[in-house]
């Protein structure tokens, strides 16, 4: 049970009130996706959502993912470098894999262009996601 200001975003609440610092502030403007979490299984930029809007919803953060195939695939494919965009990217990928297990290239692109990775060339992330989708 926590108390929030109605003006607090979900991102701020996760980080400052719950100590869940996996979701990162990259722009606080809904542009970069580093703060992405899952809400009822769908990707959400937690900087674009008020904490009060999340009442009654299932919020999954990177801390809630353990040993998932996508995390392992990110490791094996070197799909991260500095790691800052990684939690958000993984949450988006995780939701994609769960919601659209038969996603084609176009769908993958549509989903993943929501996040910015400044370190990789995206080819590594593409390989990681496709390796998991293929196994599904």
């Amino acid at each position, binding site marked *: 049970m926590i108390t929030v200001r109605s003006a607090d975003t979900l991102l701020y609440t996760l980080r400052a009130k719950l100590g869940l610092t996996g979701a990162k502030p990259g722009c606080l403007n809904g542009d970069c996706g580093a703060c992405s979490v899952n809400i009822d299984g769908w990707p959400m930029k937690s900087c674009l959502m008020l904490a009060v809007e999340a009442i009654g919803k299932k919020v999954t953060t990177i801390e809630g993912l353990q040993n998932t195939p996508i995390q392992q695939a990110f490791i*094996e494919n*070197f799909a991260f*470098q500095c790691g800052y965009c*990684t939690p958000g990217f993984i949450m988006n990928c995780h939701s994609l894999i769960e919601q659209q297990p038969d996603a084609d290239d176009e769908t993958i692109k549509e989903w993943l262009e929501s996040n910015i990775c400044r370190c990789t*060339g*995206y080819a590594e992330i593409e390989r990681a996601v496709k390796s998991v989708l293929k196994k599904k």
Partner: protein
Amino acid sequence: MEVIGKSVIRKEALDKVTGRAKYTNDFHSVSMLTGHKVISPFGHAKIVDIDTEGAWKVPGVRAILSGNHYPLTGEAIRDRPVIAVDKVRYHGEVVALVIADSPEQAKKAGDLIKVQYELLPVVNSPTQAFQKDAPLVHEQSGEYKKEEDSDPVPGTNIANHIKIRKGNLDQGWSESETMVEASFSFAPSDHAAMETRCATAEILPDGNIIIMTSSQAPYMVKRLISDFFGEDIGKIIVHTPFVGGGYGGKAPVQLELLAYVASKEVGGKPVKIFNTREEDIITSPCHIGLDATVKLGADRTGKIRAAEIQFLWDGGAYSDKAIDVTRSGAVDCTGPYKIENVWCDSYCMYTNHPYASPYRGFSHSELTFVIERTIDLLAQKLNMDPLEIRYINAIKPGDTTPTRVRLNESNVGNLQKCIEKVRELFHWDKGAVQKIDERFVRVKGVSCSWKTSTIDTNAPSGAILTFNPDGSINLMSGLVEIGTGTKTVLAQILAERLKMNVDNIHVRMEVDTQTMPEHFKTVASRGTFMAGRAVLKAAEDVIKQLKDVASCVLRAPKEDLEVAESRVFLRDDPTIGLHFKEIGYGYKYPNGNAIGGQIIGRGNYILRHLTPLDPETGEGKPGPEWSVAAYAVEIEFDRRNLTYRVIKACSVVDAGKVLNEKAALGQVMGAMSMGIAFACRETFYFDELGRVLNPQLRTYRPLRYGENPEYLVGFVESPQLDAPYGARGIGELGLMGMPGAIGNALSIAADVSLQNLPLIPELIWKTKEASK
């Protein structure tokens, strides 16, 4: 080799995919105060008045800093106030700092500070800054304290001027039958690391100053706070956890100074200074812009005989690291070509733009664009194949650089081999232009680059190795894990040298300047080279100590001992030996007697034979080696819409030796991706008041998933003999050639010469309209 070359999984991989990896802003305590910056809305303006009355009424406000005359700061020239005094020189400059209990209080108070400005004429480009009667950004530039090798010209906007005078230019022109001259221009842009910069400071009662910062240069933070503010250097302790991308943007020291003065103002309490994205883009140092003119002359065979180059770098409002960037650009001004007669003037110009810092490639992606475009213009005029003209002019051992360093097999990579490999990988011989239909055409463009790292002539690196009771080893290096995976590579270097399993090496990821030996800065692709050398030396030290103890226990001469698989053993009978766990902590005889003690390995490295440049001719040895690369891109161009996609991009890099294959590929592809974004989309748009109009990731747009091309990466391996396992720096090369190669392909496709960045369709349209 067992470990070198393998795609060893990064040591911090699990932390990073589980959200457990912590970055500076992830550390927050209840007692930590927040500093909020009030920034200038104008490019150049006199500060008439700052009214803080309303702000002080906001609950939780502890201090408001403005108008204080702190000592001036700046790396080469002390020209920068920590907080603006009297006037602001760029959009985004800090004019006041509010320190409050919470971020919302600090922001609320900041919004209530009323600053009255009086607009001053704006210097909006380095070319304008260079004009005789240009308004001055710094009226007293001659009076600033400065390093010996920077020379601002009083009464002008010139912060520094580097001259290269090699050979005889007149003779060069007389040997030339064909000449080309072209001018280029592009505005500053941004690094856009996903982690915005953040620093905290706390001053303890005993005077210890504890800084935490997302920095590529924690040891420089220590030095500069000591230099600027007269603090004891031993009392400054800097912590750097994981850093969310640097690309040069986190090499300058800025927020740390704000955090330090803020903490000092509130009795040493911890204060955090965090950049919003907007502040990170405009307030903190940016990627340098450039106006350049290049003139090249070639003889009948296409050999380049003369080069005359002028660089006007957009250093922005304060010189800081731009001084070094200006020098670095001069040092390699010609690109990777053998040219005997070279004249280059490289000016660092003050403007009313956000000030510049290093950007991946440190002047080389910028100079490569202007040189490579000019080479293509020359090839066109000579009617030569663009890859061929590069091949015949390629720099080789025996040639000299613009600063007259004689190259040899070790200190320069093999460019011709890189070009050959590009030719093959990219099917160059199938032709550069492929018409698809009346509207679409596919065009290939090429480029080459080189780079030496012009870092301090006495830049140090150190490494310490300690043992655990199980025989595993802890590796400590002051290198920062900014994303490049270098710390994992250091573990591989150590594992290879000790012939042990890399899993038994533990790498300390965070940097703590008090307990870890200094690594100069995590910049310039020098990490693997310098820290790697220090690690190798520490490994030698460990081997010697292990053998000392083992020789005693095993009653065998040290010369008969080998180290491998975490054991010291007899070469002729490996069954006789000791495991590290038996000697790493001292050897204990059955009767309880002990010898040896913990083994602590130490190693260091300092660059050798580097010299400053001669101020009149530029002669000198600026860096240890020149890495080289060749590139090609293929674009698909829509002749009606003047739009295009980058379909394929290829980089062939002379890596010396690839140490971790997937990590190396990742470095090159990631750099290419950044280079493509720099080439094709990223720039600051300024208005007439010098304001940056696009300071958000919504309007300043890095590359996105799916916009990237297919990558083709090749490696050539000609070893640098004094580097760990021969490895050369590779982290920057992938970027450097992209703007040139794409500019070349597009210029062919659109049939106009494109001489600006970014290469957006509107630029092509405008250039075509202008040429009608």
